[in-house]
């Protein structure tokens, strides 16, 4: 009797949890499979990307005319606050955590993340704080209207007099997001340090893994500062402490230090994995090894180190003494050295290669060019005399969006297309992908380039109305924003359509080198039947060398 029931069970225990479903329902469960969690992150954050995008289009709708006519000013202020908050905490952070979640264990030859349950718990906090943030539309007084920086004293002002306000919910959401990110960071750092396959030394790790490690280290040292600042702000609002309230002897500039000590490095948390994506994609579609691999890998850690020393450049026009301005100007400009090394290495990788312009390569190239543009305006912003003029103008908004849309979103799209066959086991439509690229490229530049002349002419950011002289460039920017909104349609159509009825994908459709391409598409649960033994550096294009040992004996023989 008991024997017969035992025979049935082994056939079903492919899943890490005995009861986990293996169909589409697993994406709605507390699955501990890093691949399921990765896709959960990606899909959830893409939903919020659309939400944040609608906020952006409402903002640009208001700004298409000089007067404040489309929205009440409080609604406009809530829109730009929520746009920034959603795009950062509910789109860029989680989508990159999702990609890292999916790719890192596969790339280093691990069966899962180090702490699978912690991983699932970290993900499920995302919808929770997403709902909390959206719920702030329903409380009296509406959502936070103090911008995503939440600078006091504006963020301390509470015209409704209620205890639960949009600002309080905003702090709660940001705090939960921080906890989720710290949980993720612990998991990533442990996984990368401890769980690499045999033979995968530091300098055999793909650059994407290097950049994820560099980014997650920033989360570990930076987030406590933001969390401390947020808790003090919460106490100031709710129980009337006076950390930041100048009327009671507090110092509002102190909050700016807490905030930027994390929130500037946070930009590197976002951009570093995108550098990793570029470093993965260019060798595949140029059929050449990554130029200067070791230097590119190390420069990620150099960026991590420097990122902790630059935050005051956000405060050049604030209460900042001259010596501090000069010091942080220099440290900020130094960031351009490791980033410059990466850019030159990518150009050298592509140069003289055998280029194939598939959609991931197009997005990679577009993203890299826009990053170079953003880097040049970044050096201008680092220079104190210029920053004094353009600080808090649209020039900064333009620079930031070239980084965050031009480079990060383009890079994320490149990753989506490149690893879509791996994740779903289906090929995407190349035609729709190229249409998506063209719309995105035009939309990004049309939307964000006009912000630079506007800023130089002196249009402040966060204004709901402006002088008529600024109208021309604002109309262009708004048209670009609507085009960017439309550009997501072919992408969504492509992703859903191809996942449902795309051509089945082989294990390695791009002839790419990497452990993730050695397993089937989609990879089986626990990824590898047998943990591979790595014998080569990651980008052996043109070298005809094996990446992994075909059997253990050959490794022993060679060493």
């Amino acid at each position, binding site marked *: 009797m008991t024997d017969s029931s035992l025979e049935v069970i082994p056939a079903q225990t492919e899943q890490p949890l005995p009861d986990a479903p293996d169909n589409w329902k697993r994406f709605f469960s507390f699955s501990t499979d890093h691949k399921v969690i990765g896709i959960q992150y990606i899909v959830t954050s893409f939903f919020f990307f659309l939400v944040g995008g609608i906020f952006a289009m409402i903002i640009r709708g208001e700004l298409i005319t000089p007067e404040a006519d489309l929205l009440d000013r409080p609604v406009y202020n809530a829109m730009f606050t929520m746009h920034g908050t959603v795009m950062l905490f509910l789109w860029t952070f989680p989508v990159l955590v999702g990609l890292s979640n999916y790719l890192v264990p596969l790339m280093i030859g691990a069966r899962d993340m180090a702490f699978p349950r912690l991983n699932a718990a970290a993900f499920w906090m995302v919808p929770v704080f997403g709902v909390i943030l959206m719920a702030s539309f329903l409380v009296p007084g509406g959502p936070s*209207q103090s911008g995503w920086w939440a600078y006091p*004293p504006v963020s301390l002002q509470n015209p409704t007099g209620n205890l639960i306000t949009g600002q309080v919910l905003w702090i709660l959401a940001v705090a939960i997001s921080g906890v989720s990110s710290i949980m993720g960071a612990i998991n990533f750092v442990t996984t990368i340090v401890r769980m690499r396959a045999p033979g995968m030394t530091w300098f055999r790790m793909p650059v994407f893994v290097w950049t994820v490690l560099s980014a997650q280290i920033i989360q570990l040292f930076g987030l406590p500062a933001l969390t401390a600042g947020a808790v003090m702000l919460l106490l100031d609002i709710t129980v009337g402490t006076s950390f930041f309230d100048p009327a009671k002897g507090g110092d509002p500039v102190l909050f700016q230090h807490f905030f930027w000590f994390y929130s500037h490095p946070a930009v590197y948390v976002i951009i570093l994995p995108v550098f990793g994506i570029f470093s993965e994609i260019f060798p595949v579609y140029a059929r050449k090894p990554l130029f200067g691999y070791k230097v590119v890998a190390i420069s990620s850690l150099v960026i991590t180190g420097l990122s902790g020393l630059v935050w005051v450049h956000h405060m050049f026009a604030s209460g900042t003494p*001259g010596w501090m301005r000069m010091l942080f100007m220099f440290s900020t400009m130094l960031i351009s050295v490791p980033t410059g090394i990466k850019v030159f290495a990518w150009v050298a990788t592509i140069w003289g290669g055998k280029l194939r312009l598939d959609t991931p390569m197009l997005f990679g190239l577009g993203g890299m060019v826009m990053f170079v543009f953003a880097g040049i305006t970044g050096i201008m912003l680092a220079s104190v005399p210029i920053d004094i003029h353009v600080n808090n103008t649209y020039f900064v908004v333009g620079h930031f969006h070239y980084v965050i849309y031009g480079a990060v979103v383009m890079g994320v799209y490149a990753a989506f297309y490149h690893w879509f066959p791996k994740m779903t086991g289906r090929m995407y439509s190349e035609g729709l992908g190229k249409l998506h690229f063209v719309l995105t490229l035009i939309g990004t530049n049309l939307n964000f380039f006009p912000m630079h002349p506007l800023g130089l002419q002196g249009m402040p950011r966060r204004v709901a109305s402006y002088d008529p002289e600024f109208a021309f460039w604002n109309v262009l920017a708004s048209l670009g924003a609507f085009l960017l909104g439309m550009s997501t349609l072919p992408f969504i159509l492509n992703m859903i359509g191809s996942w449902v009825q795309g051509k089945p994908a082989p294990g390695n459709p791009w002839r790419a080198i990497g452990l993730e391409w050695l397993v089937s598409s989609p990879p089986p649960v626990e990824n590898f039947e047998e943990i591979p033994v790595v014998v080569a550096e990651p980008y052996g294009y043109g070298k005809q060398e094996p990446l992994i040992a075909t059997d253990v004996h050959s490794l022993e023989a060679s060493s």
Partner: protein
Amino acid sequence: MNRKTLLTLGGVTIVLALISLWMGQQAYTWFPPQAAAEAQLVDDLFSFLVTLGTFIFLGVVGALTYAVLFQRVGRYDFSDGPPIEGNITLEVVWTAIPIVLVIWIAGYSYQIYDQMSILGPMEHVHMGMATAEAAPLSSADQSVERIEVRSRQWAWEFYYPEQQVTSTELHLPNNRRVKLVLQSADVLHGFFVPAFRVKQDIIPGRVIDFEFTPIREGTYRLRDSQYSGTYFAAMQADVVVESPAAYHQWLTAAAAQTPTAAANPAFEEYNRTTKAAINPGWKTVIPAPPPIVNYSAQDSSAKDKPV
């Protein structure tokens, strides 16, 4: 490298350099007029960075464009490129050049900043302790009084202590070093006149000294540059730079006027929207009542367009 490659590289470099220099000159036209001595310095620095940036951008994009146009592979060509993994010389060069550039840019920026400090806009009283006062241009400038700039949600008010004149329009004498005292009654504000290229956050609870030198007569726009809440965008004022004679004439005339309530867009808009029969909007901070001043700014739309 053979001779042909060197010649091509040299030719490309010269063409890129010429385009970059031209771009650098164009950069001056992207700004509002240079209405302060500081503006000339900032624009020079910006032009230099545009020249440098254009060269780097065109270099990178040019190489990529060439590769995309001429190094594509045939549809059925599945061969790999040359397995070049790096080049130590090249990598040293492209690490060293950015380091040199960074030191150059930072040094030049410091120099410009230093000159601006001599003109005096950047030092302010920090944490209640006065920093060293910048050296004045000449003794004649010392006659210019310190004008108080009072900011609150959402109005600018200017106070001339010697004549005890209050105004909602900032009048400044041309070619004189102007000393302002920045104050905020409630939240962070930012003093920003794009035509002067100067900006300083105003921090409640602190008194911030701020100095610069207007050099061009005209009417310019002062904008709040640090987000200050609901009617942030409406917090603007005109700055009138005029000859010292006209300035003193204006002060005398203003002193003779009895104070009246000035026009205030934020306060008016608040009353208009909240007194509607149905007001479904979110509750906001109530704007401060309009300032009572000797001289109240005219409707700016009726005058020459300020820049």
